[in-house]
């Protein structure tokens, strides 16, 4: 059971003179995903690069990363985590040290202990906070760099709330095409978030497109309890 109370939306009630938010499990799940999107996901390429160096090809980077996301999704609360990047690194390190190594699934010849110990686990410095925003901006640039057909299919739905049917009718294509393009776009974005450079395949983006300079991602950390 989740004991956390997170202020979401306007479903608030007054209890003994204090405002308390009513939160459903669904809300909490969505809130967790939003946190992962803004605080964890932007650092994934860096974490994977570290993992590749550490595992030296002797463990599956994907396995560790998936386990890490699973753990992050199971946290009872995430609001005490000030530095998503450090927490992500610490989670991955713990998986490597305690699971992969102990189970002897792979002989783990780490990365120097020093490198592990040198990983950040303090509260973010202003530079790191700026870094998180830069990383998120980079992630948003990846959206801008998607092939237009994929990007449109995803944006119409996610950004503008069009149904698949509406999207199909406005783009003048079948629903199946919208569905396929959205899925291909998502898969491509997942690969690129992992830092896989596959930009020379058939999904090469239109070179005339430049990322929207107006994008100015905010740190989406605005989770606050109402008092």
């Amino acid at each position, binding site marked *: 059971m989740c004991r956390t109370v997170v202020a979401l*939306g*306007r479903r608030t009630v007054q209890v003994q003179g204090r405002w308390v938010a009513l939160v459903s499990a669904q809300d909490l799940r969505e809130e967790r*995903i*939003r946190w*992962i*999107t*803004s605080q*964890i*996901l932007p650092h994934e390429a860096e974490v994977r690069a570290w993992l590749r160096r550490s595992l030296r090809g002797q463990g599956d980077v*994907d*396995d560790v*990363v*998936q*386990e*890490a*996301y*699973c*753990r*992050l*999704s199971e946290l009872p609360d995430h609001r005490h985590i000030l530095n998503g990047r450090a927490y992500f690194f610490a989670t991955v390190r713990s998986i490597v040290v305690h699971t992969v190594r102990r189970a002897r699934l792979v002989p783990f010849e780490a990365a120097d202990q020093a490198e592990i110990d040198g990983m950040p686990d303090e509260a973010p410095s202003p530079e790191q906070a700026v870094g998180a925003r830069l990383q*998120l901006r980079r*992630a*948003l640039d*990846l*959206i801008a760099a998607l092939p237009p057909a994929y990007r449109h299919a*995803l*944006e*119409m*739905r*996610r*950004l*503008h*709330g*069009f*149904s*698949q049917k509406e999207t199909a009718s*406005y*783009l*003048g294509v079948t629903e199946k095409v919208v*569905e396929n393009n*959205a*899925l291909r776009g*998502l*898969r491509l*974005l*997942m690969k690129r*978030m992992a830092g896989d450079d596959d930009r020379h395949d058939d999904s090469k983006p239109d070179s005339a497109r430049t990322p*929207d300079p*107006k*994008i*100015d*991602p*905010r740190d*989406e950390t*605005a989770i606050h309890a109402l008092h």
Partner: protein
Amino acid sequence: MPSIDDIASAWAMRGDAGVLDAAEQAELDAWLDADRRHRGAFVRAQAVLNLFDAAPRPEAERVSPRWHRWMRPRAVAVAAMGGLAAMAASLALFLLVPAAPDYATEIGEQRQVTLADGSLAALNTASQLDVAYSHTRRDLTLRQGEAWFRVAHNRARPFEVTVGRVHVRATGTAFSVRRVAQGVRVVVSEGRVLAWVDGSGQRPMAIARGDEALLRTDIAVQAPPVTVDVDQALAWRRGEIGLDGETGLQAAAEFNRYSLRPIRIRNPRAAQYRLVGYFQTSQAQEFAQALARLTRSKVSSNGNEIVIE
């Protein structure tokens, strides 16, 4: 064989497209329960999909709800007592005249309302707005005039403003919509909107922050959005008129939206003179005098109009 990521992404898309039926949900649950990596990959796929929402959007409004004049507690009690009579009367009225708009302003009046979902609507002079919210949609109709909206983010309930044949859709953003002779003018101050004209066969146009678009109902192909000075375009929200090179004639038309005593320009020099600056919407007289001084013309005013000749 599809990879874990392939399966996870397909489930994330299906879940996003709509509510899964019981069989699908059971299938997804079984897949998630089978392996922790499945759960991780699914969460990650959802997070990547969420990047589309991480694009900038307006901060949550901290405006306390306002009582409308007719909603004050005492007024509610009175309304309840008069309820039956009012119901009978409104039923009779309903059959005779078109329904009154949900929100309206008189000439020269401006008004700000907080809507049921926490979105904010600011109505400019001589405007009429209808609001129809359901569980799945937030539909608004601007019958006339101009309005600015700050939309409370909710992707599951699209916020759509209809102005005649023109539609403007947002999920969380801030923008203004104005009915003009040729169509509808849209200015986006935060985030992004999609706008389109019914029956035009054209794709919806994405209008980004800082851009303005004129959606014309009299031609088939729309001009792309242009960058504008949003502060000036939305000066009316501060009770001001922002002028940036408009002619005297255009500026007078702007002032006349706010006044029952219109400015008439009969002097061609004054009509063509270009102006820059901010005026209070209520300062029509001062504006006319300034324009007259600049163009060495004469102002005369009576109770009905202000004439520059």
